[in-house]
Each structure stands twice: as C-alpha cells, then as structure tokens.
C-alpha cells in the first residue's frame, strides 16, 4: 500500500467509524495536576467519545495490556448442583487499541509468544486475534526512566497492524497487515505527497537524534552480563530498598504470571475458576505445600525478576522480556530502576 496521510481534523471521524464496529480503547486525560495545569496524567481506557482520544499523551501508569490480558479472567465454569460438566470460558469482542507506543507494541509481541508457544492459551489468544493494534510512533523519549532504544523496542517489527506517525497537521498512516489495511479504509486518508514524505523523513531523523543509548553494552550481551552477576552482592544491596510490593509486576507490560482461584456462586449452584495477576516479588510466590519456599530471600526474588526480564524470556523466545518503558521504576516507592541495575551489573563478576 502506498504511504498515506490523514489530516488531524479528520482523526475524530475515523475513530468514530472504528467505534461503530468495534470497542476502541486509547489514551485519554485522567487528571490534571492542580498546582501545575500543564502536568497532565493519562490512562488507557475504552473510548466513549472519539474526541477524548489524546494522541499527544506521554506516560501511562498501566499500558494497554489489560485489554488483552485482564487483571482477572475467568477460565472455567462448572456446576455444583449437578454433574460438574466443566466448560471453558473464552470471551472476546472486536477491539482496537489506538495509539500504542512502540514499547507497548513490542510488549504485546512478547505476550503473544508467551501465551502462544508450546501449549497455546486460547483465553488470551482469542482476545488477541480479535484485537487490532494501531501504533503511534514516538518522536522523543517520554521519561528519563525509559531505555527503549537499548531494549530494541523503539523500532518494533511486529505487534501492530497500523503505525501512525504524527507530523504537525497531518498523521502519516502505514498499514502493516491485512487487518490494518481494512481499518484504514474508513479513514479519510489521501496519498502522501512529496512534502509529506519529506516531513516523514524529518521525523525519522529527529527521532534518531532524540534517543540515546543508556546501557554500556548491546542488548545481545545482557543475558551474559546478568549471568556474570548471579553471585554478586549487588542483588542483596538493591534488595535492601525493596518492599516486595509487586508494583513493578503490576505495571510491567510484559509480566504475565498468574494465580488461580475457584469462586463459588452465593447459592452454591456452581463455581468459576479465575486467574488473576500474580507477582514473583511476593514472598509466597515460590512456596510449596508444607511451607518450603524456594525464593525466600527478597534478593533472590528481585534477582529472579531482573533475570527473567533480561535473560530467560530473551533466551527462550528471542523476544525481549523488558521493553525499557520505565514503568516499573516510576511505580517503585523505593526507586529501584531496572535500567540502572542493568548498568550497575556491567562491572560485576
């Protein structure tokens, strides 16, 4: 498909057209700092009004993950008043995630691999198959905690159907998949002119000059750097500040560990097996029946998270476990930074 552009003024009409067929979620203004009106806070939510969409958003505490991988998800329903007859609960509806930054698109590709590899998980994949991802490119770093360039998530190769590049009065629109091409049909796009192409080129150049590497080594060496640090005291040192609260896991766009419980109907007619987000930082995560705990020390849990994000997932799937979005650092009361940790261990043996 030839490059196309959409006028900013025509964006709302396109979003409305998408909302007619699908649930559309995107970044909206959540609140404004009372003492500093320019300090706006954004969140991902289902759009009720196309005009609420804020493609100029910067940070969100939580990414769009929950639309694909909800904090609570029902897996199986069964009866208690009769033969249990357990049945799978797989729910999905046509959805568009509109305005997904490159880091979050990369994170979605990681989740796809986690739930799709070996034994596929249709509870996630059915939602994913019914969800279109409209990406939104970044011109400049969103925050000092981010290191997406290092983690290879600034230029994603998958995890989106359309990529939008905002350039002044127009938005550059590139469809990457058949689904993406179908979505763009309802937009009042026009073929890109020579001026548009030059503006696109200028955006790319600015993007390249605005982002800088923050790790003192290449991503491909991160697993080895981590391995070398396994016995370092650095884990105990950082863990001194850790409260094991799990905020890092809650805000991480690639975390997918879960716990499962059976919820019983009030009239005892049946039950539903439900999974919910879990955190490897909580002290009971690796505990077994009888009380043995295989990651009893806070430092071993912290190390496990850092290794999982930087080594295990990467080695097993070729996809990054950390996309460098910086959410865990921003959510951490103790200001533990995965980026600074990966810098700090560069010199450990």
């Amino acid at each position, binding site marked *: 498909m030839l490059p196309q552009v959409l006028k900013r003024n025509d964006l709302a009409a396109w979003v409305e057209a998408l909302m007619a067929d699908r649930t559309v979620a995107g970044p909206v203004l959540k609140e404004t700092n009372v003492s500093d009106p320019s300090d706006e806070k954004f969140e991902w939510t289902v759009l009720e009004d196309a005009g609420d969409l804020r493609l100029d958003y910067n940070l969100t505490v939580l990414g769009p993950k929950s639309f694909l991988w909800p904090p609570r998800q029902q897996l199986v329903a069964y009866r208690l008043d009769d033969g249990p007859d357990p049945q799978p609960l797989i729910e999905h509806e046509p959805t568009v995630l509109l305005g997904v930054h490159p880091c979050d698109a990369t994170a979605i590709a990681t989740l*796809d691999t986690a739930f799709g590899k*070996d034994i*596929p998980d249709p509870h996630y994949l059915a939602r994913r198959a019914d969800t279109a991802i409209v990406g939104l490119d970044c011109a400049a770093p969103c925050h000092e905690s981010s290191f997406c360039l290092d983690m290879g998530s600034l230029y994603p190769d998958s995890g989106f159907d359309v990529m939008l590049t905002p350039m002044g009065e127009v938005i550059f629109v590139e469809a990457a998949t058949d689904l993406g091409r179908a979505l763009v049909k309802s937009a009042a796009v026009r073929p890109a002119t020579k001026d548009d192409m030059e503006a696109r080129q200028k955006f790319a150049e600015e993007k390249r000059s605005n982002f800088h590497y923050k790790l003192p080594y290449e991503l491909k060496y991160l697993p080895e750097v981590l391995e070398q640090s396994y016995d370092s005291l650095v884990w105990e040192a950082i863990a001194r500040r850790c409260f094991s609260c799990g905020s890092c896991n809650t805000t991480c766009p690639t975390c997918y560990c*879960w716990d499962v419980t059976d919820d019983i109907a009030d009239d005892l007619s049946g039950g539903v097996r439900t999974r919910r987000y879990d955190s490897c930082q909580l002290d009971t995560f690796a505990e077994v029946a009888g009380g043995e705990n295989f990651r009893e020390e806070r430092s071993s849990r912290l190390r496990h998270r850092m290794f999982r994000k930087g080594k295990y997932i990467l080695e097993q799937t070729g996809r990054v476990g950390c996309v460098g979005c910086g959410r865990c650092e921003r959510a951490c009361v103790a200001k533990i930074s995965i980026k600074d940790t990966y810098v700090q261990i560069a010199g450990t043996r």
Partner: protein
Amino acid sequence: MTQIDIHKGAEAESPYVPKMARILSAEQMTETERFFRIEMEEAPLAYQPGQFVGVTVFGVGEAPISICSSPTQGDAFELTVRSVGLVTNKLKEFGEGDRLGIRGPFGNTFPYEEMKGKDVLFVAGGLGLAPTRSLIRYVLDNRGDYHKVTILVGARDPSLLLFRDELEAWTGRDDVETLVTVDRPDKAWSGNVGVITRLFAKIQLDAAATYAVIVGPPVMFKFTVLEALAEGVPENRIICSLERHMKCGVGKCGHCQIRGVYVCREGPVFTYEQVKRLREGI
C-alpha cells in the same frame, strides 16, 4: 525468534479445563496421607512414570499431585495425597465413587528406557516414595529389563511409612534388595534406625553401572546425593524429582520456574548434573 500463529492458537482447546474422573478406591495410609485409585470417565489417562496431574475438587480448587502408579498397572492411576492445603484437606473426605476433575498428565518422565540393562538404586524419603513408586512399579513389572534393583526407604517414624504392604512384599522378593529405616522408632519397630544415608553402608553398588533415583525433602536430597557421588555414581545418572507448586502445568503461570526452567514442562525429573547448574533447584 519464536513465531506464533495467533489465529490457530485462538481456536485451540483450553488446557485449563479438567476432565471428569471417578475414585475406584481410597485408603487413609497415614494420618496425613491418603491413597486414591482413580479412573478417567472417558479416555484413560495416558501417562508415564514421573509425571503429575492437576486434581480438582469442584467448589474448592486444584492441586498438583505426582502420579504414584505405573502405566503397567492398568488404565486406572493412583495418587498419594498429603493433606496440607485447602484442596488436599478436602480430599480426606473423598472415597469410592466420588468424582474429581483431572488435568494432565504434565511434565517429563523418569528415563526408564535409558535405564534398561543397568542397576537401579531407589532412595525415597517420606512422601518422596509416592513419585518414586511410579518407577519402582514400572521396573518391577518389567523386571527382566533391568539389572540389580535396590530400594532404600526412609521415614521420620514408623507411622509415617507409606505403602507398608508393598514394602513388605518387596522385602520378601529375592530379585530386589529393599531396606527401610526410620529416624525415630517406636517400641514395635525392629528394623533399621537412623537417617536414610546410613543405609548406604549396608548395600553394594556397582557405581559405574548404576542409576540412582533420589526423591525426598531438600535436606535428604543433599546428603543422599553426596553418598551417591561418594560411591562414584556419575552426576548425570543421579535422577531426582523436584517439588514446586505448579499451578497451570503448561509453562505459563510462572510459579514453578527455577531460573529459566519451567519445572512443569522441562521437569519435574532432572539429573543432579542439571539441578546443580540451575543453582536454585534444591
């Protein structure tokens, strides 16, 4: 890079739905351990020694339990359940004819093919006898395929010994050497006393031809591996089964993960050589 077919996966059967099973018989083995013989209501469970299942008590939840029988014993399978949590305590009330949900089998298997023609030393401590028994029964049912067989069993006290009838039967066989010890004897106990490593002094090992299968609590595992290594058994022929809380069984939920390894898929059976490399294994 791992490639995923999202649309194909979306149509896949959910791995989280239990299949219905019926209890054929149940027996309280000790104060805390209950034995079940179970039959799937539809297709029989196709399992191998060393694997585990997820057991659902509808209305309560699910727990991962090692299969303690061998597929050579017929279509039904057996579990030994220690009551330590919600699900396993509820199972105390379950008996013949009651229905359960079963998922699995999950995990890898004991290397019973590779062990053929070799000596086999079993060392089982406490509830470790349950998963070990799946292989003991398999080896005894294919006795001609294996060379010398030695079984060492330990428990804290005589009341905690599992499968007492079978221990007696094995002790009576002349093609198997079976030794049982308890840490704390009662007045009626006339057998060996002391931790399980003491039994190594009573047996003869041809270390170069031996597979040592060691299953038990972490502290027992450590010192028993030491004995096996001291006898000269190679690290890649010391086999163990690791305990973790597998919640999903399919390598997703993260609870059983040791470093980069999901015990529910790559384990629970590992060689000592592998466990040693994992570092966080024991």
